[in-house]
């Protein structure tokens, strides 16, 4: 099937193949066109990242009652050690790992199945269906979270009566959070998959049909392998999104005590920065999360290139 995978990075080849000698005017025009992006990248990504790295190396020391104000001291890697040793951070990582275990398969499987159904001729009212599944993504996460929180509320929401247990209780809150996130992201991933499926060459599908493959067989053996690169990109995005889960648990925290202030690593950063007022520790934790994200994305990408070879 590897023959069917699209050629890798034709765009890159074109740029490297451009003539090496350029006039100065062309350079200037290129710079001008790149400037808006470059300025935003430097101003909103690179500078804050460097500043976070700088902040993560400092801490504030107080004396006595503390009312004489803090003293800035260089902490070497003290903030990083504090985060790495902090049980709350470990618990947060554990929660997110469990969350990912529930969320990633359900989002991707759900999105893939829906996309394949939409792509097959079986579905009537295709537009209405795709819109209905996509709508949750258009709802702001906070509002979606609040709607679910009301549905979950034991006394006024229906879900406790339907399921027979409290969806905001100790053991149920993690799947409840995963459910909100899944509801939100299935439609988005479905659109990505559906768009990729539209690009599957019709001849292959017809050839498969001529060879006697049924709907399931075509979907599983032809369509899915063809869009595999797209699926892996979606996996990377979903892994990163899972690690950074923040809004859903933050909203539910207002409704139940079972979501702690450091439930996910992102909430840990928020607590350190905005509740404890410890910017050094918050910066160190963010850097660690970024590193974990980078490593996980690299692993997934590595895995994907190996599989599609």
């Amino acid at each position, binding site marked *: 099937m590897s023959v069917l995978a699209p050629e890798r990075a034709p765009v890159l080849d074109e740029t490297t193949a451009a003539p090496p000698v350029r006039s100065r005017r062309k350079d200037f025009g290129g710079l001008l066109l790149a400037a808006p992006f470059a300025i935003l990248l430097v101003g909103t990504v690179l500078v804050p990242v460097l500043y976070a790295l700088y902040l993560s190396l400092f801490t*504030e*020391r*107080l*004396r*006595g*009652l*503390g*009312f*004489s*104000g*803090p003293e800035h001291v260089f902490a070497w890697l003290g903030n990083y050690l*504090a985060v790495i040793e902090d049980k*709350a951070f470990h618990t947060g990582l554990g929660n997110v790992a469990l969350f990912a275990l529930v969320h990633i398969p359900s989002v991707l499987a759900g999105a893939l199945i829906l996309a394949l159904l939409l792509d097959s001729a079986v579905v009537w009212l295709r537009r209405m269906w795709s819109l209905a599944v996509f709508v949750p993504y258009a709802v702001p996460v906070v509002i979606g979270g609040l709607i679910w929180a*009301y549905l979950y*509320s*034991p*006394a*006024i929401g229906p879900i406790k009566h339907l399921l027979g247990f409290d969806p905001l*209780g*100790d*053991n149920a809150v993690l799947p409840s959070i995963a459910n909100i996130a899944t509801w939100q992201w299935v439609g988005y991933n479905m659109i990505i998959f559906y768009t990729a499926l539209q690009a599957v060459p019709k001849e292959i599908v017809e050839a498969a049909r001529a060879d006697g493959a049924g709907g399931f067989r075509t979907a599983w053996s032809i369509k899915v392998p063809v869009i595999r690169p797209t699926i892996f990109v979606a996996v990377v995005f979903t892994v990163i999104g899972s690690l950074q889960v923040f809004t859903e648990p933050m909203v539910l*925290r*207002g*409704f*139940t*005590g*079972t*979501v*702690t*202030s*450091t439930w996910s690593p992102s909430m840990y950063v928020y*607590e350190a*920065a*905005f*509740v*404890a*007022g410890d910017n050094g520790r918050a910066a160190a934790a963010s850097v660690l999360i970024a590193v974990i994200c980078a490593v996980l994305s690299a692993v997934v990408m590595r895995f994907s290139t190996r599989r599609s070879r």
Partner: protein
Amino acid sequence: MELSPASWNGGLSRRGFLRASAALGAAGLVGGCTATAAPPGATKVTIWSWLTGMDKYVAAFNAGQRDVFVELRVIAAGLSGGYAQQTNAIRAHNAPDVLHVEYQGLPQILLTGGLRDLTADLADLESQYSPAAWRGVRPDGRTWGVPMDLAPMVLYYRKDLFDQHGIPLPRTWDEFRTAAAAVKQVDPQARICSFPLNDGSFFAGMSWQAGDPWWTAQGDTWAVDIAGEGTLRTGAFWQSMITEDLVAGVVHGTQDWIAGMHDGRLWGLLGASWSVGTLGRSIPKDIGRWAMATMPTWNGKPANGVQGGTAFGVSAESKVPEAAMTFLRWLSTNPEVPKIGSTFTTPFPAHLPNRAVARQAYQGGYFVGDPVYDVLDEAAKRVPDWTWGPNALRLFSTISDTFGPVRSGGITLPDALRRIQQHAVADMRAKGLSVREGKAA
């Protein structure tokens, strides 16, 4: 908007003018700042606050004189971002002249070194403030803030239901347990009240009553006593109430809670003075059902906790501290302020003469039983000594995190309190503060 044309036709009455200027101030707030221009020569004072109605107070102040012009920026409430914003502004040396600090957040803000010592500026007003509020702005014996209001805790209860079923109003916590059992017997779906475990500020208020302050500033050292006798007694009492399923667990202020309060599944509320307004807004149709009383006590010894309360500090780097104090003295002590406040809320000023004004202006009609301000006054008188520590706001998160598994039996309240004590001491020591464990000597 309260802009009434009648007041314009009949000449510009003082009240009409105030209303008009208040409305103008509110209109200016759409952009986040009051947009009205300062009169020439006036000293400009900037203030950040999330107090409801602050726009109206500021507009009235600006309209009343021409020497000081106050520019308000409404910021997010305390732990929703207000404290972070103010702390970061202090760090960045661009703090406003006046900062919003609740009593519980004052010592934590003080750790930035960003507030001005107001001891000399306010010394003459000491006798005019409620002692609990005065202590609240003086954690270490110096005055760091101007008290605005006080929020003593009170018991709200469904007088109609209590009377109908012959359940006497509980005056001690033992009687409270008996009453709770009686409520549950009358209606198995109903509970006497909720005891929200995710609200650290609420639990602190409940423990405040028990007489063992969590922090005490002793010379240059903090005595930290979160697992003291009184707090553990409070914890053990509520643990038994939870174990015996005599209290609900809904979070105050949620839709679940409002529904329960309205349909008779909750017969009471352990609230604070500001709950007067909350009840009126959340369950406006329940007129004539609710009454209020001072909190039940431990063995008849009168004591009442506090939950919340606002004060204002002046930035240490303010270039106009005198003008800032002119405004804050007006805000805290001028009788115009509670009059304006009474039009949209039920103010309970820390300044005693102003409290009398608020009592006069109170509309009433919602509650039955003892008069609202009588109960609040008595509750305020009963508030024992308490000092908020420099990690109070963070501790509220720790409390809610540690109490999380209490309902499912994962931990008991007394055990959780011992853990919180360890956590708090470790956190304070890690910052470099000088800490001694246990009761103040």
